[in-house]
Each structure stands twice: as C-alpha cells, then as structure tokens.
C-alpha cells in the first residue's frame, strides 16, 4: 500500500504508534515532506473533523486521531526549513476569568494541535489582560475563550473591548455551554464555536487555512 495512504489510515484510526512509524518510514524512503503532511496527516484529520461534526465519530476517537497526527507532525517538523510554515496558525486559548472548568477547553486545545495549529494554553481563570499579553508574545492569530457559566461570560467581552481599545488585530472566538451566537455578536467577537468541531471549523474559516 502507498505509504501516504498508510499514514492517512493510521490517523483516521487514531493509531499513534502506527502513524509515527509510517511517517518515519515515509521519511526514510524520501517521500515528499509536503505530501506526508498534506495528503497524509492533514487530509485524514480534516475527514476526522468532518465525521465528528456529522456525528459519525465521537470525542474519544477524535482525540486518538489528534494524538496520532501530533506524533507524525513531531517527526516531520525537523524536515521543514525555518521559513516553512508547518503550523496553520497560532491560537491562544484559556478559560474566562473566574471560571475553573477546563475539560472542554482542553479538548479544543488538543483538537487544534491535532489539526496542525500551534496552541498556547493559558489554563483556567485567565484575566483579560493575560490573553492579550500572551497573544502579543506568541504573535497569535486567534484568541479562543471558554466559559461554563453565565457569571464568567462577561470577562470575554472585556477581552474584545481591550483588543479594540488597543487596536490589536487578533481574531476572537468564544465557546462554552452558556455562550451562543447572540452573545458572540453582543460582545463583538469574531466567531462562536458551538462545540469543539464547530470551533475548529470556525477557526479554519477565520484564518482561511
């Protein structure tokens, strides 16, 4: 079987060791690094994301695939030159100030990494200023925020207000159980992620990649 197809299958099936060994095998056989990345790893993860969005796959399988993709990507990175862009973009992620719930945020972070984004995870109870400091530090494209409670949602609006006041270009995506499209529009965020798969889709849409 074509080695790229084997990489694709390993990621689809969420087999971390298989993905890593097939990527290494492909590198040893001088396969094109871009083919391994785009036709193997990323192509598979895109399909996994679609199937998740359609309810064909569920979170545990997506996490396996994301880990398989990460394992393959780690082997590929040294083969890209410093000017190659191996990441699709950089996302600063965290849970809103006052909120300690992080399972959903962790899942989104893992799925983003598994889809080829660089993620700076600030953890929980992140003050608005911290999101901005980190976004400047890592030259982020996106700030992603999550809140589980209505009482902690307003802090996400503070981040948007600070960005506008400072005229900073970072896009903002918000999510979490009590958050909806209306709230997203009310605070002037760029996108609302209904769930992890939707968040991933919206981030791809915001960045065009």
């Amino acid at each position, binding site marked *: 079987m074509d080695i790229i197809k084997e990489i694709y299958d390993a990621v689809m099936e969420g087999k971390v060791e298989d993905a890593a060994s097939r990527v290494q095998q492909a590198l040893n056989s001088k396969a094109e690094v871009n083919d391994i990345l785009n036709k193997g790893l990323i192509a598979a993860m895109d399909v996994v994301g679609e199937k998740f969005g359609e309810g064909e796959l569920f979170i*545990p399988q997506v996490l396996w695939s994301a880990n398989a993709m990460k394992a393959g990507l780690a082997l590929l990175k040294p083969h890209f030159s410093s000017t190659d862009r191996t990441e699709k973009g950089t996302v600063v992620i965290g849970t809103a100030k*006052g909120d300690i719930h992080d399972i959903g945020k962790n899942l989104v972070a893992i799925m983003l990494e598994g889809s080829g984004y660089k993620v700076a995870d600030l953890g929980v109870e992140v003050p608005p200023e911290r999101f901005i400091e980190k976004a400047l530090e890592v030259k982020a494209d996106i700030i992603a925020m999550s809140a589980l409670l209505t009482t902690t949602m307003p802090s996400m609006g503070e981040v948007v207000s600070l960005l506008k006041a400072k005229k900073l270009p970072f896009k903002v995506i918000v999510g979490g159980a009590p958050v909806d499209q209306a709230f997203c529009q009310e605070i002037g965020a760029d996108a609302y992620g209904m769930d992890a798969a939707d968040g991933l889709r919206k981030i791809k849409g915001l960045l065009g990649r």
Partner: protein
Amino acid sequence: MNLQVSREDLLKQLGYKEPPQPRLQDMVFEMLGLLDGLVEPRLAFKGIQDEKDLPPFLTGAVLKYAGAATLGPKLENRVKDLFDEGKAAEAYILDTAGSIAMTKAGDILWDDIRQDAEAKGFKKGLRRTPGCRGIDLETQQWIFGKLADLDLGIKLTTSYMMFPRKSLSFLARFGGRLKGAFSCKGCPQYTDCTLRG
C-alpha cells in the same frame, strides 16, 4: 453509597448508541475500574430554620434545606494527570464517568432530603442549584455558610465555584407557596437540566 457507573450509561453519555470498536470498549472498562478507586463521596444536608435573610427560592417554604455533595479531589487530579500524560481520551472518558457518578451522588442527596421531609409530612418538593436562573451564584456562599460545620471538603473560589470541581450544591423547599422566586425558562441548561421538578 452506590455510585456505580455502568458501561452502557458511560458509552451513551460519550455519544455511542451502538457498541463501539473493541479498543474503545476496553478503555471504557479500564476507566470504570479506575473510577472506583478515585471516588471518595461525601454528602450532607441541613434543615434551615431561619425565616430572615433567606435566598428568594426558600422564601415562604415550610421546610427548607441546603445540601451539598462531592466526589473528592482524587478523581479530578487523576484526570489532570492523564491529560498531562497525553492520554486525553482516557482523561475525557474518566471525567465523563465522574460526571455520571456526581449526578448519582446528587440524586442520593436529594433522596435523603426527601425522606427527611416525608417523615415530617411533606412529599413534594423542589430543588434548585445556584447558577440556575433566579438563584444567583453568590447563593453558594449562603449555602456553604450553613454547611460550614460539616466536613465536606468543598471550598469556594472567589467566583463562588466549588473545589473539587466534581461537587454540587442545592437548595430544597417543601410546602408553602412559591411566588415567582425563579423561572427555569430561559436558563441555558433548560433542555438538559436534571434538576427540574
């Protein structure tokens, strides 16, 4: 206290209507085995005798209660460790199993309160948790003030959230007239809420 989580309930909660691949079933089985050793449930309630400075939900009730339950810190520490070890699927499955166990602990607490109320002649009651529409999250402070002398091991953050996170609290009322103290409609959790009477 029986907080046993069945494999079927866990798979359903994870989204699977049909049995998934054997690898996932094995992982679910493994996480359920782990759950048993990580859950240290504590729960307690108190009857409230005060008539003044009550949260609006309790105003006018004949019997009033505040209660809380927790699974203890070991479970969420293990979930964090699993995430840190790169075992995200295991972490997510274990956390989901913990959420089911937490719901069961809440139901047991509610049963205990209902039994207490029934012994006093009241069969029908309502329970509501802070954060639901009409009951401010700040009410947590009032509840845990009332439960302060009970060794539950739950701490509140400055934003009134509970540590360990796998904890819950609620107010309960029996008898008397409920005069618009709250409205469930409009609550973001309305369709999924397990607490609605």
